């Protein structure tokens, strides 16, 4: 889902500027705890990148460089890892991420209509973020909840058995 999210025109609330790319002392302690869980501390890279994204909003080149420093890894190695995985964002994302499954079972249950509905409601196409920075819309591969097709993930939550009406109710909750 290499989502080339259109960078929203309005300034995003809550996004760190490069100067702010440092963890708090408590977070640094957590980094050391995570590194200690593995025979090779570098194995904590994925968990620490999750922490970094939660803290800084997305994994910018500055964030990659900062995280590389915490692991004594080259920024190039960290970049290679970040770009391999779909859950790390390299550009600012919306305050909420709506990821609709488009794989086979969801396709059979009408995923296309759900995606069309979301595109119309949000005024964006898949891969884009709304101008107000509220929602990034994605379509993704099987989220392994096919018994509830069509379904989507909204931030951390799975939303099941979607209809256009249910999608509208879910969107209303997203601020």
């Amino acid at each position, binding site marked *: 889902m290499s989502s080339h999210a259109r960078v929203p025109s309005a300034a995003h609330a809550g996004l760190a500027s490069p100067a702010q790319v440092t963890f708090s002392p408590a977070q640094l302690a957590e980094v050391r705890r995570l590194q200690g869980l593995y025979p090779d501390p570098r194995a904590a890279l994925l968990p620490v990148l999750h922490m970094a994204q939660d803290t800084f909003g997305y994994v910018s080149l500055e964030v990659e460089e900062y995280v590389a420093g915490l692991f004594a890894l080259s920024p190039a190695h960290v970049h290679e890892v970040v770009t391999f995985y779909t859950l790390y964002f390299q550009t600012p994302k919306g305050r909420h991420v709506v990821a609709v499954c*488009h794989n*086979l*079972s969801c*396709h059979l249950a009408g995923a296309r209509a759900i995606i069309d509905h979301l595109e119309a409601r949000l005024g964006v196409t898949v891969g884009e973020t709304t101008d107000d920075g509220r929602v990034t819309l994605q379509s993704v591969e099987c989220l392994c909840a*096919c018994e509830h*097709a069509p379904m989507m993930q909204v931030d951390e*939550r799975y939303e099941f058995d979607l209809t256009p009406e249910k999608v509208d109710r879910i969107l209303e909750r997203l601020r």
Partner: protein
Amino acid sequence: MTAEKLLMRNFDRADSHTLEAYRATGGYTAWPKAQALDPAAIVEEIKQSNLRGLGGAGFPTGTKWSFIPKNHAGPVYLVINADEGEPGTFKDRYLLERDPHALIEGMLVAARAIRSARGFVYIRGEYVEPWRRFAAAVREAYDAGYLGRGFDVVVHRGAGAYICGEETGLIASLEGKKGWPKLKPPFPAIKGAFGAPTIVNNVETICHVPHIINRGAAWFAALGTKTQGGTRMYSVSGRVKRPGVYEASVAITLRQLIYDLAGGVTGNGRLKAVVPGGSSAAILRADEIDVTLDVDGLRNAGTMAGSAGVIVMDETVSIPEALMVVARFYAHESCGQCTPCRESTGWIYKMCHRIVEGRGTKDDLDKILDVARRGAGTTICAFYDGAVGPYISYIEKFRSEFEALIPT
């Protein structure tokens, strides 16, 4: 026919994920029994049970465990594959959320069998709730003294990549790298995570282990077929009345699963095709569903049991469209290391797309079949063979439907 439930026996309880509920229903009684057994005796018991891996490849679990080098001096790791990503499969999500202690107890037994002091559970990044549930159970197990006394469990989150479900890709990802699979041999049992002998097992496989210890290999073996013991969890989705997860013997037939357990076919009510083992399994026609769902039964039918993700299609479903959706998945998820896989998945998706849009040409179908066949078996991992299964079977079994879309 549905036998008794082992893996799903507690799913009806709202508190099934708690230590208290697990103990109240006989949980953590296998572990003391296993502690009284020699590691070799545990391996032998699992071999005799005919338990086979439920993550996809169907390899005999006891045999895999016996590959750990004897008298190995350094660490040995147990890695649990909870990177569930095979389209059509959702059983591990239920196990993590509803019976996390079964996995922990199974890990304790497995770790003793392979002499491992540390286990890792690799959970797909999108599974946030299952991850929280499982991590909470791990904390309970530490507090209760099951963990931390010779065996530790580290819960690890992935970050979105289907290929990390392949065991060597999973190990690379666990080590903090991109999830590129590696050529085997060496197999993980010889050189796996962090360079040490490693057993990778699926969540469901390991959840079976306490039952085998408690009730014996012979009992477990008798639940299945000659070559595969036990029950398994079938994920059923698509055009059925009651989509969901069903536990039943590995010896039931696909017809029984669709009609007796999942309530039959919706849409126009008439079955057209079924994918029996996750999207990487070859598709079956409606007249091919009187097969047993064990590893060998489906292999003999020219497809595979895989992850037991069963996707049902009624007569109104367009098979070319379905193949296009499946081909898009493989094009997106190829890790790109091997040329045949990287190139063919991309091209075949494009060709499927243009056929569906009515822009296909006469020789497109044979071109797809030819390209697919030539790459099969030549790549680093089984991902590409998993893509070839659907490419070939959808086209061969439903060729006229594709031809009808191609302008003459």
